[in-house]
C-alpha cells in the first residue's frame, strides 16, 4: 500500500468512525455543529496571556472523547500533518515579546513564551473539537445540518463535492505514484525533474475523472440539488446538549477554573 492508498484508507476511516454508535453520535448534527463553533469562538477569545484560564477548556473535548469511544490517539495520529503547523504558530513570540512575567528560580518566563503556549493550545483544542465533530457526524450529516440551518445550497454542495473529490484525486495520485515507483526502483518520492509533468498529468486525469463523474451524476437526474442524508428530528436532548456545552464554555471563560482549583491547595 503506498502513501496515497493509506491516505485514502484514512479518509474512509473517518466515515467509518462517523458510522459508529454512541450517545455523542446520536446527538443532532446541528447541535454538534453549533456547540463546536461556540467552543472554537470561546477558545479563541481567551487573552494571549491567559494560559491558566485556557487549560480547563481541554476538559470538554476529553469528556467527548470518552463519551464517543473515539481514542485520543486516533485524533493525534490523523492530525499529525497539521499539528506541527499549528504548533509553529507563535513560534517567534518569545523573540518579540521579552517582557518578564514570572521568575522560576533563575529562569525568567517572558510574555512571549506564555503567548506562544496559549496560541499553540488554542490551535490544538480547536483541531480536537473539529476532529470530534467530523468523527462523530460525518460529512453527509454535517452538510444536511448546514442545509437545515439555511446555509447557501451552492456552498454546501461545494463543500460536499470537494470532500468527495479529495478521495478521487487521491486515487488517481495513488495509481500514478505506483506507476512511477515501478519504473524508478530505489528512488524515494518523485524526482524533481518529473514534478512538472506529474502535476500536469494529475490535473488532466482529475479533470477527466471529474467530467465522467459529473456525467454520471447528470445521467442519474442530478440538477444542482443534492439530496442530503436523512437527519433525525431535533430532540430536547439536543437542546440540552447545546445549553449544557454553552454553560460549560462560558463558565470556563469567565471563571478561571484552574486558579479556583489551585486556591484549594495554596492559600
Amino acid at each position, binding site marked *: 500500500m503506498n502513501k496515497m492508498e493509506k491516505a485514502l484508507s484514512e479518509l474512509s476511516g473517518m466515515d467509518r468512525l462517523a458510522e459508529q454508535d454512541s450517545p455523542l453520535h446520536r446527538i443532532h448534527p446541528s447541535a454538534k455543529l453549533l456547540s463546536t463553533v461556540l467552543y472554537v469562538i470561546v477558545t479563541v477569545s481567551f487573552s494571549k496571556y491567559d494560559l491558566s484560564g485556557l487549560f480547563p477548556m481541554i476538559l470538554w473535548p476529553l469528556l467527548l472523547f470518552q463519551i464517543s469511544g473515539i481514542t485520543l490517539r486516533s485524533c493525534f495520529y490523523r492530525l499529525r500533518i497539521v499539528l506541527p503547523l499549528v504548533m509553529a504558530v507563535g513560534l517567534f513570540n518569545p523573540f518579540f515579546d521579552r517582557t518578564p512575567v514570572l521568575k522560576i528560580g533563575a529562569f525568567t518566563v517572558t510574555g512571549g513564551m506564555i503567548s506562544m503556549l496559549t496560541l499553540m493550545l488554542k490551535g490544538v483544542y480547536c483541531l480536537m473539537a473539529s476532529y470530534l465533530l467530523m468523527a462523530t457526524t460525518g460529512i453527509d450529516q454535517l452538510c444536511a445540518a448546514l442545509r437545515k440551518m439555511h446555509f447557501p445550497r451552492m456552498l454546501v454542495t461545494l463543500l460536499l463535492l470537494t470532500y468527495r473529490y479529495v478521495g478521487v484525486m487521491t*486515487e488517481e495520485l495513488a495509481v500514478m505514484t505506483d506507476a512511477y515507483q515501478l519504473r524508478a526502483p530505489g528512488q524515494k518520492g518523485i524526482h524533481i525533474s518529473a514534478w512538472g509533468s506529474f502535476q500536469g498529468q494529475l490535473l488532466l486525469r482529475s479533470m477527466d475523472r471529474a467530467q465522467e463523474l459529473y456525467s454520471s451524476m447528470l445521467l442519474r437526474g442530478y440538477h444542482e440539488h443534492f439530496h442530503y442524508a436523512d437527519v433525525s428530528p431535533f430532540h430536547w436532548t439536543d437542546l440540552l446538549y447545546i445549553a449544557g456545552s454553552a454553560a460549560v464554555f462560558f463558565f470556563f471563560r469567565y471563571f478561571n477554573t484552574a486558579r479556583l482549583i489551585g486556591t484549594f491547595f495554596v492559600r
Partner: protein
Amino acid sequence: MIDFQNVSFAYEKGDPVIDGISFTIPSGESVGLIGANGAGKSTVMKLLLGLLQGEGTIRVGGTPVIKENLAKIRAGLGFVMQNSDNQMFMPTVYEDMIFAPLNYGLSREDADLRVDRVLTQLGLEKLKYRHNHKLSGGEKRMAAIATILAMEPQVILMDEPSSALDPRNRRIVINLIRSLGQTKLIASHDLDMILDTCSRVILLSEGRIAADGPAEEILRNRELLEANRLELPLSLSPR
C-alpha cells in the same frame, strides 16, 4: 424505441467520428454495438444520452434528444459506464443506489424499498453498506449495474460491461443482462458476450454502419469481421 436518423458527429471539423448513421431499435430488443477501437461505439452512446450533440435526429420513445428534453429522456435511460469507478461517486453502495431515485422525486422510504428490491434481485444484499472503494472489480461492476437498475429505466446502455472481470463474474454479468427485460444497447469487444446476450448486432467501422442484422449471422461472418478489424468470437472459432 430508439431512432437514429442520419446522425453525424465530429470532435474536430472535417474529421467525423460518426458519419451519417441511421438505425432503429424497437422496445425490448437487445442490440450489440461492436467495432474496433475508435469505431465510434462510445460516441453513439454519448450522443444517445445527450452528453454530446451531433447533427441529424435522435429520438427516444418519439422524443427528440435535445437540450430541453434531456431530463425527461435521461430518466428512462440507464447507462452503465465502462469504468465503474467513474460511475460510483458516493461513499457506499446504498448511497449511490439511492442517488437517482431521490433525484427523480421518490420519497426516501420508497427509494429505500426500491434499493432493497434491486439488491435482492441481484443477490447483492451484503454489499449494501459497503464502501465503494473497498469493493472488488466484479462487485463494483455489479454494484454499478444495481445503481442503474434502481432507476428502473426503460432502456439500459452498457459500455464494455464485461471488461476487467474474471470468468465467473463475467458469467454472472452475462446472466444478469439476459434476465433484464428492458431494451438494451451493449457496446463491447467481447463478442462471445454479445453472442450470449444480444439478438441483433450493429457493426460500426470508422463512424459508419458496416453491418446491421441478426447477431448469429454477423458474428459468424469471418470475412466481414476481419475486414472491420475484428475476429470471430472464441466460441465460434475452429480449434
